[in-house]
């Protein structure tokens, strides 16, 4: 059985389409990433899968339960860490865990044992009796993850789990999520707009832009799909002469902001040929560099823009969504 199956899921707010006919599957024990700029539809997708919002059309199964119809089945199967904090700050770490355990009807001793265990796991056992309002951002996140695991979910949803955390805490959380996945074998869906996060953590990544999944594969395959290497040429070639250097071994050419990314395999061997070809076109070249593509390049390739530009776009989208929701 698949951990999650999504078929043609669509969510509209008035005229605005937040999630546009997306389909994907997640295997058991897999870490799956939804990568895209803010406002691309990641959180909306998560809300729908977690039964917090209704889909306009399409269907989805979580751990074999229909999201529309068997909501309680879905809710029992999932643990979720929301993008925004959802702790009660006036309660202690222990009480937050206890509240959760009682809501999920975990009985006395089991609840206490697991709470002890999980608080230790996230390194909060020595602060369990302190009020959450005294906790730092990283500690709150860890507590939320521990809480999300208390009822032993089959699928863990992490919506931007490292948003606003410092690099050290992020690293720590990544390790932590990896361990969880290995130890408990739970499937994890993680949404993020950090490329390195998706690359490091995820078995497979779906790139989502404007509500659509534009590419879906393992990070390695995604990077290979645009060529094994990237030669980046900095040039003010506005006439597109660079795009004319047609060689059979060139797999892709993308340009943005005076940079040209040439995707190919075996960049080291072809470098001289490229330099020769560039010299013939007589265009000014400021610099040339060879590197392995990152998911950032993959994103650029599939959406035609860098994630920063996409963020700017999607601010507009979010405004529209807000507007559509209110009217």
């Amino acid at each position, binding site marked *: 059985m698949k951990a999650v199956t999504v078929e043609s899921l669509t969510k509209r707010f008035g005229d605005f389409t937040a999630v546009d006919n997306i389909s994907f599957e997640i295997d058991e024990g897999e870490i799956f990433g939804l990568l895209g700029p803010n406002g691309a539809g990641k959180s909306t997708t998560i809300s729908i899968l977690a039964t917090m919002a209704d889909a306009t059309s399409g269907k989805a199964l979580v751990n074999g339960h229909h999201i529309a119809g068997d909501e*309680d089945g879905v809710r029992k199967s999932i643990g979720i860490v929301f993008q*925004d904090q959802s702790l009660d700050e006036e309660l202690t770490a222990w009480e937050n865990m206890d509240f959760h355990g009682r809501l999920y009807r975990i009985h006395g001793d089991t609840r206490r044992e697991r709470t002890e265990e999980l608080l230790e796991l996230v390194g909060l056992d020595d602060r369990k009796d302190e009020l959450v309002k005294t906790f730092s951002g990283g500690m709150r996140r860890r507590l939320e993850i521990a809480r999300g695991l208390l009822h032993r979910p089959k699928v863990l949803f992490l919506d931007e789990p490292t948003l606003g955390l410092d690099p050290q805490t992020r690293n720590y959380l990544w390790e932590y999520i990896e361990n969880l996945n290995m130890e408990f074998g739970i499937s994890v869906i993680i949404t993020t707009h950090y490329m390195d996060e998706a690359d490091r953590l995820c078995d497979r990544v779906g790139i989502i832009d404007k509500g659509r999944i534009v590419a879906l594969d393992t990070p390695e395959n995604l990077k290979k799909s645009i060529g094994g290497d990237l030669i980046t040429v900095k040039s003010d070639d506005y006439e597109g002469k660079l795009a004319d250097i047609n060689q059979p071994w060139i797999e892709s050419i993308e340009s943005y902001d005076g940079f040209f990314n040439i995707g190919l395999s075996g960049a080291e061997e072809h470098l001289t040929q490229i330099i020769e070809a560039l010299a013939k076109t007589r265009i000014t070249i400021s610099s040339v560099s060879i590197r392995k593509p990152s998911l950032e390049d993959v994103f650029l390739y599939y959406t035609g823009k860098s994630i920063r530009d996409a963020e700017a776009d999607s601010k507009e989208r979010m405004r529209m969504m807000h507007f559509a929701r209110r009217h």
Partner: protein
Amino acid sequence: MDVIYTIWLRSIKRYLRSRSRIVGSLGMPLFLLVFLGFGLNSVVVIPNTGEDYVVFLAPGIVSMGVLFTSIFAGLQIIWDRQFGFLKETLVAPVSRTEIMLGQTFGGATTAIFQGTLILILSFLIGLKFPGILGLLIAAGFMILVGIAFTALGISIASRIEDMNGFQLIMSFLIFPIFGLSGAMFPITGLPPAFRSLTMYDPLTYGVEGIRYGLTGSSQIDPLVCLVVLSAFSVAMIMAGAFLFRKTRI
């Protein structure tokens, strides 16, 4: 039952932890009792019973304490929504009705606690001890007022998005409910038009019921009070459960 208890427990914990709020919300009732009670004692004569104004006023101020605490306890949902905690409860495999009932009973319990504190202050100021039966009757009415108005608070909180409407609720809902209820004046002496208005105020029946329990006399038959207030409580719980089920994050 577990779930209702869980949510109830959280309300109680939060209430007991907010010492400054407990003390703070005792200030206003205490001052009203002292200033109005003693200030107007010499000029106000209560018809029929001829009791002191401060004795007449005390049950009204007790109901005020219960009213304010319970509505705010219901409105707590707005804060929970704003601070994200509501998501934690809504995504759990429990029914909305259970959550709503837990919140209602939790709010009602804190409201009764607050009312009891004011009652103790009233005894210190001059209210005579009404006997166990009287206390029980008053407690019963306090419970009903607490439940009804927490549920009302939840209904409102389910419909509004943020605290922007708060002042509006204060000025045009809570204060009129209190002011019209006969907590501060005997309703028998009112002009007919005004009097019929007070009869539409559900709190009137709560005030009269509590007054009957504490002083032994009331201007509305306590049985009528019981029936009207119970019906209102049930209606509010149903409205609250219905609206809360539809609430969105």
